[in-house]
């Protein structure tokens, strides 16, 4: 139970931090914010990697995790790249 309260604490604090930071993002950058945060939600990749590579695990668990690795990698790679591409377009007159 203690362990659960610990990670619940982390969860709640992270949401508060999230609210604080995100409210400061100007509407101009809302689309890159969505694609960039989407890339960050691809963090499930680390869970997927561990399960896909587990040596003593069942084959089914590995195959499920393998598909998860593909999806999460698309999110991470595609998300960060497309956000970078978009953000580079926002500029002042030079």
């Amino acid at each position, binding site marked *: 139970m203690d*362990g659960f309260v610990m*990670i619940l604490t*982390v*969860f709640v604090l*992270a949401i508060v*931090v*999230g*609210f604080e*930071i*995100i409210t*400061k*993002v*100007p*509407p*101009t*950058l*809302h*689309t890159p*914010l*969505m*694609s*960039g945060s989407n*890339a*960050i*939600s691809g*963090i*499930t*990749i*680390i*869970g997927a*990697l*561990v399960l896909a*590579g*587990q*040596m003593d*695990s*069942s084959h089914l*668990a*590995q195959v*499920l*995790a393998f*598909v*998860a*690795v*593909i*999806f*999460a*990698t*698309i*999110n991470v790679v*595609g998300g*960060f790249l*497309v956000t970078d*591409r*978009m*953000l580079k*377009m*926002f*500029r*002042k007159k030079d």
Partner: protein
Amino acid sequence: MLNPSLVNAVYLISAMMFIFGLKGLAHPRTAVRGNRIAALGMIVAIAATLLSNRFDWHYIILGVAIGSVLGAVAAMKVKMTAMPEMVGLFNGFGGAASILVAGSALVAVTQQAGSSPDMQMKVATVATGIIGSVTFFGSYVAFGKLAEFLAVKWKLYLWQRVIKYGFSLIIAAGGVWLGVSVMETAGKPISVGIMLSGLLIGLILLSKKDRFPGMDALKIAMTIVSLALGVMVVMNPANQMLFWLMVGAAGVLGVLLTLSIGGADMPVVIALLNSYSGLAAAATGFVINNNVLIISGSLVGASGIILTQIMCKAMNRSLANVLFGVMGPTSDTPSDDEVYAGKVKATSAEEIAMLLDGAQRVVIIPGYGMAVAQAQHAVRDLANLLEQRDIQVDYAIHPVAGRMPGHMNVLLAEANVEYDKLREMDEINPTMAQVDVAIVIGANDVVNPVARTDPNSPIAGMPIIDVDKARTVVVIKRSLSPGFAGIPNPLFAMDNALMFFNDGKKAILEIVNAVKEY
């Protein structure tokens, strides 16, 4: 091999990098660097994970390779007008990844002799399965509606048909196959349930309308079924097919919830699904007891919730109304004839050029129509031309203009419009009376003064850009057809309004030529 404490310390560093990365998005000047810091944080987290144990590398390398290629190609090829579709689709991938990780963890734990999942893992697995599945199927529907192949009656292109029928077929056949193959082990009710949910999803996705009779009852039923199955998974985690049946039921719910939502509400839906994909990742963090997943997932969840709120506020509607309400003309909405008859003045490019010649301040109000007509570059050319003649040109952007939050800003940025010219609604409205010419291109409901004047209108109370207060308003539009709200716009009949009936891009090009010749 790194020891677990060290790995967790590295995860903390990644989490900090995500936070500082997002902080960078507070300003366009620091945003590129912010995004790269977040990306670096991801690389650090992945590296630490891969060094944390000895792994069977086959699936890891293959999965990362396939995902990287697909992701990179999508990111490089996607057109800026198609950003909403892409973000919609990627939200779904996030949801799918979360379900699969939770499912895989469940299999791994329950098949290990002598180990059984604890309460936290069981509940988190259920939460991940339900949220993840609603996200995945909801996002697919959002993608399909944005790419205009779901819930439409018109003829589809080949690629649209391939995706639409292909996806339906895969889900239906997959459900039936899984149901049949687990008939022995999982018992008849569960296997039939899996078959049914697969068939139901496949069938509903073929519907050519976004609403059908009994839809709301089915939504409620599927919510109850998903939650009840969730309780059963917690009580009996060893029967993995219960988990997949729950995912199937939640999938039906995800399809139903998104299918009934109209085009104008797409920005809300995309933001909400973005939030869900984050929450699914956070829930996955509870499944595998991992802080960095929880932190990143909550950041994304919070971001999506804030965007959802902003979008709802910009339409003066509650989230419940967006998700479950029906928007459209009511019986006391005036007819087109009452509003427009004899009062609408059509204009020409030459007349607009004459107006612009005497103007000092011009504001351009873009809407989804600008994206459809791909007119952003032409608009920029017109603005440049006017600026060369010492006319001040700004852009007024309504929060729900377009199909996702910030859609117009990205399109104009792509056309090299400097970001400090992109003004927010609240910033520009007080100065609207000093504007000589307001040019509305492809926007309708967000400039409809009825929102201020008629408390019975479906858009009553929605904040709008007060273009009617400008000296002259030029509206570029193909016809007098209504916007998403389905109501006539008295702006078009006002004394200071001129209609230029034309395709968005062609209209702007004609105005550019007329200004040059004037």
